[in-house]
């Protein structure tokens, strides 16, 4: 009987290499958050807008996100934004968020390089902060 152990080893290595990356929506070390939204959405409920534009959320992200050249690594982008001048990491993140959202906006990606989450923005700030803090 043929020895299949080398093949199993290859599969294991592939899983280790790519399995971790797929669970981290933004594949780089450190706490990062992307919020994708549509600025021209007339259907935007007041509660959603209050969370989306919460200054407390902004403070939290400023404090907790890893710094990229001194700037906290979070973005809040309109899905129509031209982001072609941004690093590929963030361009890919927006593409993934838009894909995951399937039209449900605002949408968030949170990542610490190892784990992460991709979800629709809740209507209340507390549940959102709780969910983000899981990945600190």
């Amino acid at each position: 009987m043929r020895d299949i152990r080398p093949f199993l080893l290859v599969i294991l290595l592939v899983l280790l290499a790519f399995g971790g990356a797929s669970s981290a929506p933004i594949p780089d070390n450190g706490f990062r958050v992307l919020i994708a939204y549509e600025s021209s959405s007339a259907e935007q409920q007041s509660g959603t807008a209050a969370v989306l534009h919460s200054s407390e959320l902004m403070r939290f992200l400023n404090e907790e996100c890893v710094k990229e050249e001194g700037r906290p690594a979070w973005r809040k982008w309109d899905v129509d934004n031209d982001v072609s001048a941004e690093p590929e990491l963030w361009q890919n993140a927006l593409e993934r968020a838009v894909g995951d959202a399937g039209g449900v906006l605002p949408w968030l990606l949170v990542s610490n390089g190892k784990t992460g989450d991709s979800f629709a923005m809740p209507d209340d700030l507390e549940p959102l902060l709780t969910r983000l803090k899981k990945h600190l």
Partner: protein
Amino acid sequence: MSFESFIHPDEHVIGDHNYRTYADNDPVIDGQKMSRGLLERDYDERPLGSGCAAKFDLPTIPRDEWRERIEEMERTKSRLSDLCDVAGLQCKNQGNTNYCWINAPTYCMEVVRAVQNQELVLLSAASVGCRINEFRNQGGWGTWAIEYLSRYGIVPESIWPANSLRREHDTEQAWEKAKRYRMTEWWDLTPRSFDELMTCLFLRIPVAIGLTWWRHEVTAIDPVYKNGFAVRIRNSWGLSWGDKGYSILTEAKATPDDALAPRTAIAA
């Protein structure tokens, strides 16, 4: 509902009862005479929604929801002014340039960038004014400015000082840098529509409003309720005017003769 907005004691409240004081005088602030510079927009030359602008096309938020929404925005500190404060974005100071019509759209662009957590870069209104007016200190209206911001971008103040009309700043490198600071989408609001203005503010989109009565263009930033609906503006006369540049215009005085609402800028 008994809610009324908090108005800071240093904020001017400008309404029908006192607007003449503001309309008739250019103030002297910190020893410097301030200018304005708005010309009335020629809608024959630049019709509503012409050029790269899109006509405002959303249903407006009904007035019976406004007061509750304003209360929520203040309670949750989710107004644009709250975000500007967290981002450390200060107001413009046009000094004695007649470039209010550039400063207001420029400030809108800085606000949009701050909301998106773009790098805090102050942008030089004079760089755009000099190009449009061939280095003359002349008035204009916001559409001219915003079209330029969209096509060519704007030079950072670190390269072209905010109010400098000197030609030495006008270099190829400066305009290469300016390409990173371009506006990409904005709405052209129906003239004299306070409801469209308020809807933009509820969506946290800043609006550059041209006010013929004042011959001045300023940035509308928050919806407000105080003995009626009103708007918090941020002026371009530096931090000593009002509360760090903020003041209040009642509905009658905030209703714009032309209004532009920038929504997206290049992320860079």
